[in-house]
């Protein structure tokens, strides 16, 4: 029994250490920097040229808002102007994002920016990712007022 308790303590300490180490690492990697939007420029042309099938779909925008609240707001902030805390993500109302083609945003959502803390979102079916893109593009830049909630 003592061996089990000792092993559990060791594992608990290792787990805690891994959480703290990972925290420090994430903090460094997600610190604001000039190339925070560089991933947008890495989208292949084929992906960039894809059109959003829900471009003019108001329902998709409403659905995208809910998806944003569930999956994106935690890191990018409720108003998409960037998150706070350890998992801070960049503002999605920056001109780099708002002027990016929908296909580029869809590509980034699908592939994530894994080394900088953004997970892949291909687990969301394609229509849901496009709905998210539709909502994000509707936000406009930080100078624009956010769209009214439906």
């Amino acid at each position: 029994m003592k061996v089990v308790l000792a092993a559990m303590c060791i594992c608990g300490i290792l787990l805690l250490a891994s959480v703290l180490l990972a925290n420090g690492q994430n903090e460094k990697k997600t610190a604001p920097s000039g190339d925070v939007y560089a991933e947008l420029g890495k989208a292949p042309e084929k992906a960039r040229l894809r059109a959003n099938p829900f471009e003019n779909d108001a329902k998709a925008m409403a659905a995208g808002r809910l998806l944003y609240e569930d999956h994106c707001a935690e890191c990018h902030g409720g108003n998409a102007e960037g998150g706070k805390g350890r998992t801070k993500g960049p503002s999605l109302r920056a001109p780099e994002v708002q002027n990016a083609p929908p296909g580029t945003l869809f590509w980034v959502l699908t592939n994530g920016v894994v080394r900088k803390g953004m997970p892949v979102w291909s687990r969301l079916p394609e229509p849901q990712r496009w709905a998210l893109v539709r909502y994000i593009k509707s936000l406009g830049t930080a100078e624009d007022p956010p769209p009214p909630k439906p």
Partner: protein
Amino acid sequence: MVLLSPFFARPLSAQENPYFVTYDHYLEEPGNLEIEYFSTFATERGGNNFHSYWTEFEYGATAWWTTEFYLDAQTTFQDSTVFTGFKWENRFRPLKREHLINPILYVEYENINRADKTLKEVVGHDVEEDFREANGDARRDIEHEVELKLLLSSTAKGWNFSENIIAEKNLSNAPWEFGYAAGVSRPLSLGASAKRCNFCRQNFVAGLEMYGGLGDRHSFSLHHTSHYLAPALAWNMPSGWTLRLSPGFGLNDNSHKFLLRWGVSREIDGFGDMVRRLFGGRS
């Protein structure tokens, strides 16, 4: 209060797959903690039926690393209830982007006794008759094991296809044992709803799993191995809770005839931040 705050933190509407045994390539979101409880009821021919259960604490350390701690126990009917051990699992994503097939590397240390009946993975020559030993005897034998898995997973048009190749080694003098798990799943609807709803079709993910042993280093074969086929369903609720249900059926005489698995989980955001604050870090 800081310790309790995860239970009052904002829950996230999860998007979980229905698998109990198979892993896909999706890791926990960075900083989030998912607390999961799973149960397995199994019939036992020539012995007592049992109910095993385990709790998982799954933490997204980074977007490419998920770490997870398990506590296992079981109740064998007409016998007793015993704590059977703990496991520490880590999953690593080596590739930066999505590909046709996405690999994940899985490393786990297990400190479990021979009374463990979670059937979380089936390897080597694990067969039904191994589970007949009385808890009082089986719990005395502690096993230290390392388990390695190569998780391969693809997602296309809403379908997820996952294949896991398993190698497990008892750190005492025992050969490597091998196993497999494979699963396919899809949400009942791919669209998104403009309103929050509990019973929308996209909240339900249906799937099918198959898993079993492949013998060991000295006898890599299907001889004297067990295999299972299990339909599975997950219900991802907007409140942040996920329920899973899976009846499983043994495919040969070495397998338990019937397994019934169910589970409940809840994802909590901001756990990493909270731990950091606990140790004096700033938000």
